[in-house]
Every structure is written in C-alpha cells, then in structure tokens.
C-alpha cells in the first residue's frame, strides 16, 4: 500500500514535470502558424522551417552549436589544471582559485552577465562570437571542475604507488594512470557544460549585444510577438539533445555517483 502510494506520487511528479514539455512538443506539430494545443492539422512543416528554410533559425542554431561546443571544450581545458592543482596540492591558493572559478555559476547570472557586458565593452570585443564562447566557458567552468575533481578522487592510490615505484615521472604517471582513469569524468563535465551553454540565455544576451543570436536569444527576441510553432520545434530539439546527452553520460559513466550517491550501496 505504502509502496503503491510512493509510486503514484513519483509518477504524478514526473507527469507535472513533463507537462509543459508535452504541450510544447504537441504544439510543434501544428500545421498552421498559431500555437494551438491540441495541434491543428498536425504535420512536420515547422521542423523543415526550423532546420532548413528559415535562415534566422538556421543561423541561430549554428551559433548555438558553435558557442556550446566551444564553451564546453574551453571550460574543460580551464577546469583541468584547476582540478589537478586542487587534488595534487590542496593548497590554500588552489582552494581559493577553485572557489573563485565557481563564483559565476553560484551567483545570479544576470549580475555576471552585466559585468561581462561592461568588461568586453572595455576591451572592445563586445558582440564577437568568440567572446560568447569565452563568457560561457567562464560561467560553466564549475561543472567540469566538479566532475573532474570527483574523478581524481576516485583514482586508486595503489596505481599511483605502483607507477612511482617503477620510476615513472609525474608526466608519465599523468599520461598513463591519471588521464585514462579520469577521462569519463572529463567527458561528463564537457557534456554538462555543453547542454547548459546550449540552453543559457541571460549572459548570452548581455555579451552578444544583439550582434548575433543563439536559439534561446532568438526565442526571447520573438517573445513579444507571441509564440509560433517553429519555436516549439526548437524546444523539442533542445529537450531531445539533453536527453540524448544525459543518457550517454548514464550509459558510459556512473550518473548516480556523479550526482553524489553513496558508493557502498548498489
């Protein structure tokens, strides 16, 4: 009885969680240009519009992809030395740097966005695409920092000892022991940053200075004119990408462990 009630509660929570997504997905099938639910004359015309014929959306999607992949790569590259320093030394400086590196993610993004807007205006780069990439990398560096730190902590001490006894230098140990064992965690961190960058809106708004638009920006810009089913297609694409990415992380990595589950129980 209690078990059943528990299951019902979980199912209900899942349903509410899925509700707006289902509505948007349904609306994306609309044949006409009005956002109706249930959809009228359902077909895939809006999908063709979004991916092929409407240049605004095609360009926005390209920008989103460039920024997300660039930012995620850069975030991992920035987080690696920080995480390594923190693990290998645990010094005050490394703790301070890790804390500062997580600051943009922890504080309200609108404040960070405004600050980045000022900063890039001073350097004269406001509105360049690479600025968007660097800004997102700074914002999401905290995620690979966490996953790589978890990965480094899971390395078996015996492997390091064995490498040291056999005379391996730090560089060799790093290449043959540390790097391979933390690779899944680096990849998870990369994907977390990728997905969040793909969906981020407010920081991008301030650093793009309307010089270019990503998909989320484009949707926000069109917000005043009302929604169209083409925007719903974007939402469907985004949720599909997220599910695919996190499924991959769950399939090839240990998702419960990454989320902080206890290791002793299975």
């Amino acid at each position, binding site marked *: 009885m209690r078990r059943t009630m*528990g299951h019902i*509660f979980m199912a209900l*929570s*899942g349903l509410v*969680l899925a509700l*707006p997504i289902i*509505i948007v997905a349904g*609306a994306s099938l609309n044949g006409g240009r009005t956002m*109706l*639910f249930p959809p009228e004359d359902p077909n895939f015309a809006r999908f063709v519009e979004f991916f092929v014929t409407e240049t605004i959306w095609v360009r926005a999607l390209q920008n989103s992809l460039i920024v997300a992949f660039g930012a995620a790569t850069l975030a991992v590259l*920035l987080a690696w*030395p920080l995480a*390594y*320093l923190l693990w*290998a*030394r*645990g010094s005050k400086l490394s703790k301070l*740097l*890790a804390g*500062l*590196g997580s*600051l943009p*993610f922890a*504080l*309200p*993004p*609108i*404040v960070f966005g*405004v*600050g980045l807007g*000022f*900063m890039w205006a001073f350097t004269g780069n406001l509105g360049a695409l690479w600025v968007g990439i*660097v800004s997102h990398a700074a914002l999401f560096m905290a*995620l690979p920092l*966490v996953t790589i*730190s978890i990965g*480094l902590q899971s*390395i*078996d*001490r015996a492997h390091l000892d064995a490498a*040291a006894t056999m005379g391996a230098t730090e560089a060799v140990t790093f290449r043959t022991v540390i790097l391979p064992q933390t690779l899944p965690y680096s990849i998870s961190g990369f994907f977390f940053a990728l997905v969040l960058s793909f*969906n981020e809106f*407010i920081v991008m708004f*301030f650093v793009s200075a309307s010089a270019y638009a990503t998909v*989320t920006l484009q949707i*926000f810009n069109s*917000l005043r004119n009302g*929604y169209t089913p083409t925007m719903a297609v*974007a*939402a469907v694409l985004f949720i599909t990408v997220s*599910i695919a990415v996190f499924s991959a*992380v*769950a399939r090839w990595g240990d998702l*419960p462990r990454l*989320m*902080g*589950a*206890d290791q002793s*129980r*299975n």
Partner: protein
Amino acid sequence: MTAVDNAKAPLATPAPRARWPLGSLAMALVVGFLCVTPFILVIVISFGQKIEGAGWEWAFTFANYQRFFVGALWPDEVTFLHLQRLYYALYYAVIASVLAVLTAFPFTYLLTRLSRRAQSIWLVFILASLSLSEVFIVMGWDVLLSNRSGLPMLFEVSGATDWLKRTGWFEVLREWGLANPRNVKFKTSEFATILTMSYLVWPYAVILLYPALSRLDPSLTEAARTMGAGPARVMTSVILPTVKLPLIGATLLLFVFLLGSYVTVVVFAEPAKQTTAVAVYESVRGSTLDAPFGAAQAVILLVTAAGFLAIAQWLTKRSEAR
C-alpha cells in the same frame, strides 16, 4: 552550485607532488580575469554617474544607492519603489524555493530507494528538464496558463467555471486576482509566477537533496522500525533530523538561484510587481539606459545572494562536520 563544496572536500588519497609556480600564476590570472573582473567592474561602475543623453562616467558617488533605498529626490520626496522590487524578488523566491523543496523531498527520498538502474533513468529525465532553458519552460507554462488556450479553456469547456460560479468560489478567485468577470485567469498573477519559478528549480532541488538522501543509512530506519516506530515516527525522529541541514541548505541555494530569474517575472508577474533583476535589465539594456544605476541594483542583488550563499555554505560545513 555544489562546485565549491565538492572541490573543498578533503582528498581521499594523498596525491603525487606537483610543483609549477608559473602554471599556478597563469591560472590565477585567467580565473581572476574571467571570473572576478566582471563582478569588480559591476561594483566599481555602481559608484559612477549617468551623463544625460550620453552614457556614463567614472565617479565616486553614492547617489545610485541613495536612489535605490529612498529615491532620487530624497530628502524632499521618499519613494520605496526599488526596495519594493527587491521585496518582490525575495517574496517570489522564498515561496517558490520552499514549495520546490517540500515537494522534491519525498520524491527524492523515494528515488533513492529504487534500483540503481531506475535511478539512472529518472536522473536522465530530471537532468534534461533541469537544463531546459528558462525561455522554453516559460513558453510551455505560458501556453498552459494563457487565457485563450490551456487551463482556463479547460475550465470553461469542462463546466468547472460554471460550477465555481454556482458555489461562490469564483468570487474568492476574483479577490485573489485569479479570475476576470467571465472565466478564471492565471496570467498575469503571483500564482503563475511562483508556480513557474517553483517548477524551474524543482529538478535542482532533487539533484541537491539526492546526495544527502542516498547516503541515509537504511539500517537506521530498519532499527527504528524493529523497535516499533511507525512510518511517521521514523520520518520525524530518524530521517528528518539527519537531513535537516541539507534541506535548509538546498532551500537557500534555490532561493539565491531564483533571485535573479528574469524571463519568468517578465512574462508572468503583474507590471507593478516586477523584481530587481528586471529593473537591472531595464537600466542596462532597456529603455532607461542608466548603466551605473543598473550596476548599483546588480550589486544589491549580488550582496543579497552572497549573504544567503554564505549561510548555505556554513550550514553545509556544519552538516559535514557531524
């Protein structure tokens, strides 16, 4: 959000010695430039002043802060408009974060009792909805709550509106601002704002509570059960005391996260009940174009957020120490 906590956890294994002073210096410069300079600039510019019709200039004036707390014309005239916006930011964020944690707590507890595989599947779903952009979530709820489609329409068609009118509940809803003379309406209202905000952070709440709840030792609850404690008793005397601090910590983090939410407030809150985040946006990029005043409001948001984050951090430390 948990980056700092995890990064500061003590090393499980003593690691090989690493020594690269130049590397550390370079890293400090990069982190300082990318992650700290923006915040410093916001703080510095908040003391600047606006030039009428041009932009702004460096200065050292407290005029922007004075304007925030008592209005620009003080002492002749006092207005609390900006403080009121901060109040609404806090008000929405408090209710929404408490609501999210209260509903996410039983869910997460049940989740951690499932098999590892089932947990993975749920986590994929929750992470996907967590990362879904605020613009899409607002779009979904907007369609659901708007007057021409969604729930109000469902109320009308199913006869729920008529039923409400007959039983007199309709008048109550009108008093709460949730109905117009003809039908129920959810846009724009505090209800819609708080509902969407709560939805926005619900997956975060699950992710934040997950570590604490999955580390709950099942033998503790089993022991309590064998000694004759009922399920309610086990909850109040065993589970809740153990996870009390993570619960409060999670609520605080979500609260800070919601302080800065922008799209939800713009779309769902009444014009008179907008928040500081919206005002920041208006000042920096919107119609008023007053960067220093926008920066000052951002600083106030920042200080509020940092204060609550510090409390959350302290609570986490305390719960780890035990």
